[in-house]
Structures are given as C-alpha cells and as structure tokens.
C-alpha cells in the first residue's frame, strides 16, 4: 500500500517539477537538458502509473485517496486538495502518460530546429501535470483546477508560434470558447455545492437518492429536476473541452499549434477530458434520462456532421482534426446511451490511433518541409515506407476494420446505441451508422492523396529520423492489438479493469445485450464480416479509392452537382461566420455603444461635466450680481423697495 502512495505522489509531482526545471533551466543550459529532464519526468510518471495499474487493477488493492493539503475552510464547508486512485483514474493516467511520453520523444525530432525548444518541453510537461490533476481529482474543485490548467497550456501551445497572427488568434479563440463552457461548468459546481453541501465526488454520489426528487424552477412555473440541471450544466462544461457542436469551432483552428501538440492535447488527452468527466459522474447522470438524451443527440449529430466536413478539407491536419471531432461524437453518443465503459474503451483506442495519425501527419509535414496541403503531396508511399505503414494502420483502425482496436470499441458503441430506449435513439443510431461510411471515406481520401497517385511536387522527401518513427511504431502496435486484449477486461468481465468506478442502472444498461451474448473475441470478428457497419466501412474505402486513385475526376463532378451541399461543407456550416457576426462584431458594436454613448456622452459629458458646467453658469450669474457698481446696487434697492411697498399696499 505504501509504495502505491509514493507512486501517486511521484505521478503528480514529477511532471510538475521537471516541467518547471525545463522552463527555467532552459534559459541557462543547452536545450538537450530541458528535453531530457522533461522526458525523465514523464517517464517517472509513466512508471508510477504502471505500478498503480499493477497494484490496484491487477492485484486488486482497494481504491484510496491521498491528501495533499486543505485549500479552504469556510465554516462547515471544507475543500481539500485530495487525489483519488481508483480503476478509472488509473486507466486514464496510464493512457495519458503513455501517449505523453511518446509525444515527448517524438518532439525531440519534430522541434529540432526551433529556437524556443525548452519552452515547448516546459509547456508539455506542465500540460501533462494539469491533465493528471484533472484525472486524479477526487472533488469538483481540484478537477476544475486541472480543467483550467489544461485549457491554459492548450492556449499557450496553440499560440506557441505567437509571432504568427493566425496562431495568436487561434489560441485566443480556443481559450474564450472554452471559457463559455467553463461558465456553465462553474454554475454546475455551484449547483452541486448548493444541493450536496460538498464538492467531493464520494459525498455527492452518496446523497443522490435524497436529491433526485428535488426540482428547481429556472423559468417561472417550470420545475426541472435538480439532477438534470446539474447534469446539463456540467455537460455544457464538457462540450467546450471536448469540442462538441456548437462549441467545436476552436478545435480545427487549434491546428495552428505544433503537430505533436495536436496529437497529445487535441486528440489523445485534453479533448477527452469531457468524456472522462461524464464517465466519472456516471452515477449522477444515471439519475437523469433527460440529460442522457441531450448528450446522445449532441454526440451523434457531431459524429456524422463533423465527419462530413473531413471530406472537403485539403489541409492534412484539418482532416484529422475533423476526424477527432467526429470520434469524440461517437464517445459522447456512447455516454448518452449509458455505455460509459464502451466510450472509455473508444477513448483509449482513439488516443492510440489518433495520436498515431497525427504523429504520422507530422512526419509527412516535416518531410515535406512544412507543407500541409494534400494537393501538393502524392506518391509518398515509396519514400516514407515506415510512415506509410503506420498511417495505414491508423487509418484502418479509425475506419473500424476488424480486428483492429477501433473495430472493437466503435462496434460496442454502435451496439449500445442500437439497444438504448431513450427518445431520439433511432436518429442517433442512423447518424452513427452513416458516420462509419464517412469516416472510412475521409481518412482513406487523405491516405490516397498523400501516399498514392503521382507525386505532385518535386521536393525531395525521405523518411524521417528514428527518434520520430520509433514512437509511430510504439503507437501502431497498440492500435492494432489493444482491442483484442482489452475488450474482455474492460467491457465484458464483471469487476474487470474498470472495477466499481462506473454505475449503470438496469433499465439503461445498453451494453447488457453485448455482455450476456458475448460470443468470444474471434467469433465477434467473424460475425462482423456480415454486419452492416463493416460493409459501410469497406464501401467508404472503396469509394475513396475509386475517386482519388482510379477516377480522380469524380470529386470535382460531385462538388459541381451538389453545389449547395458542397458549399455549406466548405464553409463548415457557417458556424464561424455566424459567430463572427453575432458574437464578435455584435458584442464589439454593443460595447462601443456602451463606452462612447452611455459612458462617454450620457454619464461623463452630460451628468458629470454637465453638473460642472451648471455650477459654472450659476456662479457666473451670481458673479453678475456682485458687479461692484454702486448705481446698480442702488437701482436694485429702489426697485425692491418699490416692489415691497406695492406688495404691502395691494395685498
């Protein structure tokens, strides 16, 4: 037990300390120093999480908390800084530290020529620290600390090349949109505190029964269940970080950051924080079918419609970014269907294959001398065989072709959504099914454009250095096999790797069908060969092959025929235009009115300076009365006397 507590402390402190060292020491020492220190920190954290994995999950040690200090006490309300080690948090930290470690190593190669190298490693290590804080928190406040911490590091890393205006703008946009959802998250925490008088997860879960019947009227005469309100507020919080529609617009822009960051933050870890949050709060969400329905609809809409956008992108990173949005939609839809374990499973496989795809794209970008436009690529298969193979594995996994890891996780989500009885379940299932075809289409479109066909450019390209392809291999292997290895302990076995961390009520248990009739791993693969999703995926690949290898004229014709649809896809459904018009320009116009008209004219010119002028005028008037001329005084005296007499005599 003792060594587990030490491991927990190391897990958090190692990335923090080494991150700070890398940042401060980077100014004085050679850059290799900060790189090695940061990597050592993550390595320690990774080993610590393996020790925890072994201790708690494999050896069945009990879950435990570690107390750091007390943040605040306000009469009866205490907020401790405590971390919680249970099955769910251990699985998450293992994935986070694993991907982070590989991305750190990869970055040595990717950022070789960048002068601000130490700053980069400092940010990445601190990001890992914040992400671990988020995952390990045992109360809402500490989780919010980590939540905002990863948001901050994401802001800094998107704007890493801050001298570029586009990067600075993208980072600002990402932060502000995340703040919009944080506002709801903040209110959600306030609601939790109000009703549970605590922000501790365990206390909240223990009192759900008492709070469940309570209602709150946000609008007059509209009593809503308190749990639903809390659930929806917290989910809106998750929608920002996990880039759910309509708060997704920052994620494609975040591609302004260096590619390793896109892999680590904007694919594998930070954007899945929302998924983790909902899974962590599964006992709470189980009390609110309304919130679950909302989640299901948002997620499935996202899965299909964001995937469609991937088809029309030319920037390789943006294709993968839209793919991330779509895959997050799958996870969220799974959460809505109460298949929390399936969503987490997809989170883990996605972390591997999406990081793999991004790092492979990064390798391509480096080999192409920072060219990201796929129209200028082509025929790279021969020149970059390792990257080619890894990208292919990533693409197959993303397209959920059995027996890759993506197949198992995505199929479980599809199964669960098919079983769920919430309103809107049919719509959700249809979206997710179509999404399978779309996914295969956009990723193999990118694959064929980049690696096959005629080389469209004469730039000399060659395979990247080993420090960069080695992490690709290290990600490609789990992308292939963790599905086979993990589906049983994660989904099927009672009391498996997720232990008692999740809670699903009987009627909502949409995975029940899969669990009770689980045919075994390989039969599941063979059954899939005759199933609809599999053939949708295959046809996506075939369509991509036909349109981009065999008959390259097809895409242009399709675009011409469906002009309206194509345009709306190219403009990303107009979200950016709408936001710019209403929120950006609208609020600036309103602010200008407030600042110059109300503050400037009404208050300052009229009221403040106006009263100054008024006093001036009155005193000028008073000055005139005191002219000092005797004859004027005499005249006033006589006139007053006269008036007085008239008044006395007449009245």
């Amino acid at each position, binding site marked *: 037990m003792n060594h587990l507590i030490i491991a927990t402390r190391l897990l958090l402190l190692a990335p923090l300390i080494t991150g700070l060292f890398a940042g401060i020491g980077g100014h004085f020492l050679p850059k290799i120093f900060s790189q090695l220190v940061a990597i050592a920190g993550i390595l320690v954290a990774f080993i610590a999480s393996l020790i925890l994995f072994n201790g708690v999950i494999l050896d069945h040690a009990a879950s435990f908390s570690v107390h750091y*200090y*007390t*943040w*605040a*006490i*306000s*009469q*009866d*309300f205490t907020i401790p800084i405590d971390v919680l080690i249970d099955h769910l948090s251990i699985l998450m930290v293992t994935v986070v530290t694993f991907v982070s470690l590989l991305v750190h190593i990869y970055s040595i190669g990717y950022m070789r020529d960048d002068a601000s190298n130490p700053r980069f490693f400092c940010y990445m290590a601190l990001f890992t620290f914040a992400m671990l804080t988020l995952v390990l928190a045992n109360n809402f*406040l500490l989780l*919010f*600390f980590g939540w*905002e*911490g990863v948001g*901050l590091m994401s*802001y800094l890393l998107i*704007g890493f090349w*801050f*001298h*570029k*205006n586009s*990067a*600075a*703008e993208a*980072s*600002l946009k990402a*932060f*502000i949109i995340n*703040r*919009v959802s*944080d*506002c709801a998250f*903040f*209110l959600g*925490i*306030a*609601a939790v*505190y*109000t*009703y549970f*008088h605590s922000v501790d997860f365990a206390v909240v879960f223990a009192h759900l029964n008492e709070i469940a019947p309570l209602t*709150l009227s*946000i609008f007059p005469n509209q009593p809503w269940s308190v749990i639903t309100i809390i659930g929806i507020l917290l989910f809106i919080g998750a929608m920002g970080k996990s880039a759910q529609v309509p708060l997704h617009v920052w994620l494609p822009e975040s591609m302004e950051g260096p590619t390793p960051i896109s892999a680590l933050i904007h694919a594998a870890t930070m954007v899945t924080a929302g998924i983790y949050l909902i899974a962590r709060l599964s006992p709470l969400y189980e009390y609110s079918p309304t919130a679950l329905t909302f989640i299901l609809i948002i997620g499935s809409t996202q899965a299909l419609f964001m995937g469609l956008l991937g088809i029309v992108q030319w920037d390789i990173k943006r294709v993968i970014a839209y793919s991330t949005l779509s895959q997050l939609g799958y996870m969220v839809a799974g959460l809505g269907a109460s298949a929390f374990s399936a969503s987490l499973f997809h989170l883990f496989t996605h972390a591997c294959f999406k990081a793999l795809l991004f790092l492979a794209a990064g390798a391509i970008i480096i080999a192409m001398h920072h060219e990201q436009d796929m129209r200028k690529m082509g025929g790279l298969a021969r020149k970059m065989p390792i990257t080619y193979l890894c990208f292919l594995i990533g693409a197959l996994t993303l397209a959920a072709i059995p027996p890759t890891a993506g197949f198992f996780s995505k199929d479980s989500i599809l199964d669960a959504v098919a079983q769920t009885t919430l309103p809107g379940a049919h719509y959700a299932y249809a979206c997710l099914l179509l999404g399978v075809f779309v996914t295969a289409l956009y990723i193999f479109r990118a694959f064929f454009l980049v690696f096959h066909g005629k080389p469209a450019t004469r730039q000399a390209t060659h395979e990247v250095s080993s420090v960069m392809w080695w992490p690709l291999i290290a990600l490609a292997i789990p992308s292939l096999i963790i599905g086979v290895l993990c589906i049983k302990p994660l989904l099927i076995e009672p009391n498996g790797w997720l232990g008692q961390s999740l809670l699903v009520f009987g009627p909502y248990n949409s995975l029940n069908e899969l669990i009770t009739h689980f045919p075994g791993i390989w039969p599941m693969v063979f059954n899939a060969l005759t199933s609809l999703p599999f053939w949708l995926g295959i046809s996506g690949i075939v369509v991509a092959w036909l349109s981009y290898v065999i008959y390259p004229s097809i895409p242009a014709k399709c675009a011409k025929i469906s002009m309206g649809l194509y345009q709306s896809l190219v403009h990303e459904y107009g979200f950016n235009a709408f936001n710019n018009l209403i929120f950006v320009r609208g*609020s*600036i116009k*309103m*602010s*200008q009115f*407030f*600042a110059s008209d109300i*503050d400037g004219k009404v*208050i*300052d010119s009229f*009221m*403040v300076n106006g009263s*100054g002028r008024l006093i001036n005028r009155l005193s000028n008037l008073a000055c005139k009365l005191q002219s000092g001329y005797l004859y004027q005084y005499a005249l006033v005296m006589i006139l007053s006397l006269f008036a007085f007499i008239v008044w006395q005599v007449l009245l």
Partner: protein
Amino acid sequence: MLQHALLSSLIWLPMLGAVVCLMVSSDTSPNRARIIAVIIALMSLALCVPLVSHFNTVGYQMQYTENHAWIPAYGIHYALGLDGLSLPLVIITCFTTLVVVLAACTSVKRKVGQYMATFLIMQGLVVGVFVATDAILFYVFWEAMLIPMYLSIGIWGSANRSYASIKFFLYTFFGSALMLAVILYLRLKSGSFAIADFYALKMSMDVQIWVFIGFLLSFMVKVPMWPTHTWLPDAHTEAPAGGSVVLAALMLKLGAYGFLRFSLPIVPDACDKLALFMVVLSLISIIYISFVTLVQQDMKRLIAYSSIGHMGFVTLGCFMIYIIMHNTQSYQNAYLAIEGAMVQIIAHSFGAGAMFVGIGILYDQMHTRLMKDFSGIAKTMPLFAALYLLFCLSNLGLPGTAGFVGEFMIILAMFHSSFWITALASTAVILTAAYTLWMYKRVFFGPITNPEVANLKEIGPIETINLLLLAGALLFLGLFPQAELQFLTATADHLLHLSLLSKL
C-alpha cells in the same frame, strides 16, 4: 512595549520617513531618497510580521488597541484597533508601498524625494483609515489621503492631468461631505464617536435609509460603482504608475471597507431593504463595465475599467447576504458570500496592482499606452511577458491564482438564492477572459511591427524582483487561500451577525 504602539508606528513611521526623504533628497543625488524609501517600506513590512504572528484568529474583538483622548471637548479620541478585516488591508498597504517605491526607483527621474515622500505619506494615511476605530479619526485620514493622491496625479501625471486630478478630487470629496454629516448625526444619537457604539444604535427605517444614502454616495464613488465610476479611468490614465497602483490596490478598497465597516453593521435594515437595488448596480458594474472594457484602446483605461468589474463582485457579495437569507435562510451561504467579498478585496489589490506596475514598465520605455503601438513584445521581453501573463491570468480568475478564490466563493454562495443573478454574474468568467487575453494578444503576441518594440530592453533586476514579489503573492493566495481565510473567519462571522441583526 512595541505591541502597544504597533499600529501607531505603522502610521507614523512612513510619515517620518517621508520627512527624512524630503530633507536628504536633491535632484543631484536622487539615490539617497530611493534608498531611504525602500528601507522605510521594508521596515513597515517587517512591522507587519509581529502583527500577524500575535494576531488572535479566534476572537472578533479589536486587537492592538490604542486609545488616547484627542479633542476631549467633543469626545474625539485617537483610537486605533485591528481586526480580521483590517489586518489584510494593512499588510496590503505596506506591501503595495514597497512595490510602488521599488517601481519608482527605476522609473521616476524627476523630484524623486518628493515622489517617494508622497507615497510614504499616503501609506501612513491609508493604514490610518483601516485601523481607526473613532469615526472622526477615520474621517480625517479618509480626507487627508486625497491630498497626496491629488498631488501625485497633478505633479507626475501625463498630459491631461489637471482635468483628471480635479475630477478625482471633486468626485470623491462630494461623497465624503455627506459622510461627515452622517457621522455627526450618529454622534448626536449615540453620544460617542466610537464606531463600535454606532453598532448598538437603534434607528427607524426612514432614518436608516437616510444614513444609508449618506454613506452610500461616499462609498460608491470610491469603489467605484456604476454610474459614479467615470473618474476612475481618467484618474488612472493620467496618474503616474505608482499613483495608478495605489488607486487600484488601496483607494478602491476604502469604499468596500466602508460598506463592510459602516453600512452593513450600522444600518442593516436599510441595507436589507435596498439589497436588490445594490445587487443590480453591482451586476451592471460586472457586465456592462466588462463590455465597456472590451473596446478600450488604452491599456491603463482597460485595466481601470476591469477594476470596476472586479469590485462589482465585492459589493455583490456584500449585499447578496440579504437576498440569500431571504430566499434560503442559509447562514452558511451568506457567510460564504461575505467572506468571498473580503477575499476578492485582497485578491484585487494584488492583481490590479501587478497589472499597473507592468504597464508602468512598458510606458517608461515606449511612452505610450495605446495597444496599437505594441505587438510582439513576447519576443523582445520574454521574462516580462511570462510574468505579465500570470497577472492577466489572475485578472481573468484562473483557478490557482488569487483572482479565482473570491469569485468562486461568491458564485457558490449565490446559486441557491437566485439562479439568474448567479448566471449573470458568472458571465464575468467569459468577459474577463475575452478582454484580458485580447489585450495580451495585441500587446505581447503577433509580429513586431513597431521598430521601437524591437529595441525594447528586458526588465532589469529591480523590476524583476518587484514583479516576482507580485507574482508570488498572486500564486500563494490562489493556491493556499486558507492562509488568508484563517484571519478573516472570526471577523466575517461577527460582521455577518451584526449585518443580519435588526435595529428597528
């Protein structure tokens, strides 16, 4: 012995230092004044150490009390005392003076001795305001501190300084005159000028409302609350860097202190009756002012407006206690709100002070405060950019920085009593981030377009120490708020008790 005169020494030591500064300084050897001012500021801060270590956190009574008859004919006393509300404010005053004096060491070149003396005198007077327990003594300090502030804007200010200094003086003086009338009335009724005796006074609702209005006008100008806020941006833009820091970190706190020390405990029923009105004014300060902040072009004006928004949370916390008690009868939540207001006062002192010190450093090199003249400073001044980012993060209330704690407590406290007030107040989360980081982006990020920016020099050792002090304070208060809360607890409880006790 020292303990019995601790508060007096905190008031008079800096004044004495100011006299010495004036005597030794000359334009040919400004260093003497600098060294003396830094030593005096450090000594004052050192005096705060026994203040904290001997402070009794359990009781709400005034501590370190001193009481001497001053004008016996009218029963006016030189009476000082310190409780959990004043303690942090006194420490902030000493800390802020140190920051101002350090910043002035490198930035002020003209009339150094006089400049240092002005701010040392100001320190003594502000400490006096926070520790006076006699209403007339309080009033004397309150008014007296306008003079050094007026002089600092008028002498060391920028182009439009005379308009700003007169506006500042008239605005604040107008409010104070009414306060004097109210204090005299309370003396008439209670037969004493001791503030504690005012607390025991019974008054009818009509009288309470008049007393409330008298106090209100004086305090709301100082806080400042909408719509009596327009003096602040002008005063800030024209004031020298030190003046801005003192304005934001100390002067605004006087208004909030006034609400907590006078309005709430003396006329609780009037406060109760007008609570919704005050809450609405606070919400306007938070939301409307945040929008106004968004379009400011001048960095100092921007921070000045953002101060108004942050102080809106203080008044919101103060007056929400009545709405909380009405709607939910939750003493715990009311307590959280009033304690949150106190925490917000402390956090804003450090946060806004840090922002203005930073702008002062830029202004010294560039002689402009307009954001369009800047771009890409992060390239030429990386250390400064990193520290300033931390200040910005505290300004937008990121968890882990001081700016988060108070807002967090107040929002948590309010939710049950009114969803919509809470929701409106929490839009600050978005708006503060928008204007703060938009400013940061325009000033620090982007390509370097102005050749003057390319020639900027990274901050020197004194400036680095100064900014590190501020950064350390912001992080410490954000990560370990319990360190400050333990001093507030007993006083907050007592104040809340008084504020909820009917005087009818």
